[in-house]
């Protein structure tokens, strides 16, 4: 594991420079190195906050990190608090953090299970009931109709003569 961690550490140092505030980069004279790195592919974009805003964001972020480190120091080093294994026993933000913001649970419930339920619904209702039954109904209807028409063939000569005479009469009537 050491080598991958070393590689990641190196990359994180390099990666950090990509997002260096514009004002600082300008002051150091290195802004062109990063700003225009992907210009041949993506074109150039002139979009950045003012120096004051960038410094303010950096300052607030840094303060938050220092405060978190200090809070962690108080909690785990000074007071010797040990992390609670059972997420259910916690409340509020601690529960949220211990449960890793419940992203996995959210994903499982609202993406995976919802997806599976929808797929099952399609299979049970649309595929098996609607589509299959419609197709089968067409087949059944054809069978039923042919079953009715089959009975026209009675095998009795009188019936055939009667149909023949009626058909001739209809044709004559149509022609006249």
């Amino acid at each position, binding site marked *: 594991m050491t080598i991958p961690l070393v590689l990641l550490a190196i990359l994180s140092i390099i990666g950090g420079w990509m997002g260096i505030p514009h004002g600082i980069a300008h002051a150091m004279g290195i802004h062109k190195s990063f700003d225009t790195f992907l210009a041949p592919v993506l074109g150039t974009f002139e979009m950045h906050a003012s120096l004051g805003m960038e410094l303010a964001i950096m300052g607030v972020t840094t303060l938050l990190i220092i405060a978190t480190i200090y809070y962690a120091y108080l909690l785990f080093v000074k007071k010797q608090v040990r992390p609670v294994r059972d997420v259910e026993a916690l409340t509020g933000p601690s529960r949220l953090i211990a449960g890793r913001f419940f992203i996995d649970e959210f994903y499982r419930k609202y993406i995976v299970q919802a*997806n*599976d339920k*929808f*797929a*099952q619904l*399609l*299979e049970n209702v*649309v*595929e098996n009931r609607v*589509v*299959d039954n*419609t*197709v089968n109904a067409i*087949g059944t209807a054809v069978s039923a109709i042919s079953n009715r028409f089959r009975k026209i063939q009675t095998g009795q000569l009188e019936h055939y003569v009667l149909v023949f005479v009626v058909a001739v009469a209809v044709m004559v009537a149509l022609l006249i």
Partner: protein
Amino acid sequence: MQLLPLLLIPLLTAISAYFSGKNAKYVALGGSLLNLGYVLFLLYTYNTTGQETITFSVPWIPQLGVSFSLMLDGISLMLTILSAIVMPMVLYASFNRDYPDRHVLYALMMLMDAAMAGSFIAADGFLFYLFWEIALIPIYFICLKWGGEGRQKITLKFFLYTMVGSLFMLFAFIYLYQHTPDKTFALQALYEAGRSLPVQEQGLVFAGIFLAFAIKMPIFPLHTWQPETYYIAPTPGAMLLSGIMLKMATYGIIRWLIPVVPQGVAEYGIWAVGLSVVSILYASFISIVQKDYKRLIAFASIAHVGLISAGLLSANVQGIQGGLVEMLSHGINSVGLFFVYDIIVTRTGTSEMDKLGGIRSIDPRLGFMFLIIVLGVVALPFTNGFVGEFLLIVGLFKYNQVLGAFAGLSIILGVVYMFRSFQKMMLGEVKDEALNYKKQTRQETMLLLLVCLLIVGFGVYPKPILAISEKSVVELLQGIAQ
């Protein structure tokens, strides 16, 4: 004359196989390899001489304006290559089972090959219809004689479904024929007749022809024959149906639909594209909940073919080129997927995924090769599936961004159902059904290796494949635009 061997080699092989008794499989394989060699020769000629279209035509039924006209351009060549590559693989895959009356089986398979090849090179509407119908007869008997439980009812359903669709296509062709000045079914004459029709009439012709293709591919909600037929069909039959036969319909969209009624496609095509996208999503979702691996492949095929249909009907270079490459990829991947099914079922007696598990730990080689096939199916970059699907989605996105975005979901859903099937069958603890699982034979390894090499080879270097049809596709679209 150069085109006649494409029909004669499989046809003569079919006759020879029928009279070869127990050696029928070797005769059939030999004939299909000879055919592959001839197709590669044609490809070489096509690339080196710069001859764009090879034609052959003799009058056949002059009273009806029917001629025995064949044509091979870049588009037909792609499908001919697909058929020539897949056929020996299907035949070789069938070697691991002893089928009763094998001389009849192999003769029927080669007869079907001849009919499918004919449909890919026919340049006469009547002839195309004839080959389209002839191809149906051998597969009907293959499923009926060597199929699984309930085959009588299911094959009849399959046959009736396809015949009904074909009838509409025939009506459309006859309608076009009546509008040709010389009363002929010749391809160019039908193109001119179709293009001269008012938009609404083009729409009707479009609907008639598309219905036949939509059933054959199939597209939702005309698909119900397909999962059942694939399920009961013997493995070589399922491979032929999925690997080659359905491409008659997707090829038909390029050759017998878009150029015939271009305005009809432009005006009403959105409905067909929409239906194809619904088909992609519907089949993908249904695949997710399938418990049987073979039924899963059947629904996955509907999803992939829906994407091909939508891309082709976008009627732009990317869509059609993507469709052609995807047809080739889908043919190869289908053979791989069905062959894995056959390997597992012959050893465990089941294709229910919940009953299988841990096969990879017994046969790591199968696990590895199956994974490559799965990656090809889910269109991972550097696999054959990626090239076609990427182009299809680009083409579809250019046509309609919303439909393109929905169609793009097929890749994600494809990962869900394919990876789940892989996990269930290959990973985890060895289930009871797989306890006595025997490792692959050399024949099985060779075939799967070939499938994997084609998947990776086409994925890494797709340029020669794309180059085959590029010029013909551009010309086809230019012809429509004029």
